[in-house]
């Protein structure tokens, strides 16, 4: 009986202890702040930049959370657990902020490099632009020079051509008049009382044709004249035929027919008196009026 009661007395504290332990294992001590802090810690842990950029702060936060967890495991008072959890929570947030700062600083460094690269690119682009502008300017200058050279050349060749033309006109004994340049083919160039050109006359007409071919814009009026010997009608026809003869000769030498007009005046417009043979010879003539640059030839009156 005595041993039995002693046994029972020994069993009661053991049962009590078991009951307390059971209570402990089913309801572990925690606070909402500690739960919140644990969640914050998990979030920080799953953020790679925190461990990478703020290792010391993260370690401190981890240690602080360990202290809070240990206090909870030791079933310390809720206010004690909260005190430690609060510190841990603030340290976790600090680690996050430090990580954020480091990340922003590396962005700044990176952006600085990027900015330098862009500035370099900008300078390169500006240099290229300046170079291409310089090249363009050089090309423009070259083109202008080439154009000036060409103009000078063409002016030179124009001048040379003019000089040659002037020489030919001088050879033809051309006279500058109000109506244009007038070349007189005198009687010697025609056989007597005939419209056909003599060999000498053909040479003169050849020179005339050269001038006209070189001056494509020029046109000619061929005027025939006679002396007062013979009937007026005959003289008119003869002057007309002689003018036509010169025209045909020119056409035969390649001058376009539409540039050549003819006119017979007979014994009109004498240049000498008809009183003696010498004067009459002067009156027997063909005059070629050369218009330059397509200007129309004024009629005689």
């Amino acid at each position, binding site marked *: 009986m005595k041993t039995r009661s002693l046994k029972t007395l020994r069993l009661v504290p053991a049962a009590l202890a078991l009951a307390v332990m059971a209570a402990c294992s089913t309801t572990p001590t925690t606070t909402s702040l500690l739960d919140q802090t644990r969640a914050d810690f998990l979030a920080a842990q799953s953020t790679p930049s925190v461990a990478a950029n703020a290792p010391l702060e993260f370690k401190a936060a981890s240690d602080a959370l360990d202290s809070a967890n240990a206090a909870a495991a030791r079933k310390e008072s809720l206010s004690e657990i909260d005190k430690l959890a609060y510190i841990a929570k603030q340290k976790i947030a*600090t680690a996050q*902020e430090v990580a954020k700062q480091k990340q922003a600083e590396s962005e700044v460094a990176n952006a600085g490099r990027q900015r330098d690269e862009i500035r370099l690119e900008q300078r390169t682009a500006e240099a290229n632009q300046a170079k291409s502008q310089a090249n363009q300017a050089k090309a423009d200058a070259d083109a202008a020079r080439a154009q000036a050279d060409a103009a000078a050349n063409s002016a030179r060749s124009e001048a040379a051509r003019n000089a040659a033309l002037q020489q030919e006109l001088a050879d033809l004994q051309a006279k500058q008049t109000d109506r244009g340049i007038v070349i007189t083919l005198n009687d010697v160039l025609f056989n007597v009382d005939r419209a056909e050109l003599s060999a000498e006359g053909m040479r003169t007409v050849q020179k005339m044709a050269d001038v006209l071919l070189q001056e494509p814009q020029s046109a000619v009026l061929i005027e025939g004249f006679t002396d007062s010997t013979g009937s007026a009608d005959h003289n008119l026809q003869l002057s007309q035929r002689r003018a036509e003869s010169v025209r045909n000769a020119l056409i035969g030498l390649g001058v376009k027919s539409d540039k050549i007009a003819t006119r017979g005046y007979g014994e009109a417009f004498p240049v000498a008196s008809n009183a003696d043979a010498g004067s009459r010879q002067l009156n027997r003539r063909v005059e070629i009026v050369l218009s330059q640059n397509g200007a129309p030839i004024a009629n005689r009156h």
Partner: protein
Amino acid sequence: MTTIHHRYAGMCALVALLGLAACASEKTPAVADVAVSRQAVANATSAGAADLAPAEMQSAREKLMRANQALAAKDYRTAQDLANQASADAQLAQSKAGSTKATMAADELQQSIRALREELNRTNATSQQ
């Protein structure tokens, strides 16, 4: 009788000494922690945390003040707890200020990079004309 009395007196003295020792061992770390938190608050302030993390800064200052009051009242436990919390708050405030400034600098730089890139694109566009 006198021996017993002496023995009691000795025990009392010992208890009193132990109590004092306990008091002294609590006072030193509390004073140190309050000093640390004062420094933390000063650091955060000079980092511009008053403007950039006003809530944390306010909390840190208030806890530091209360820690000082607890120290004056010889409530070393409370002084130490408040000082530790004030330190944590001040450090958070300082790091917030730092991250805000760095983020602003990064944003500003990105902005200027955008502007530079636009300028570059314009330059390239005109040089290609």
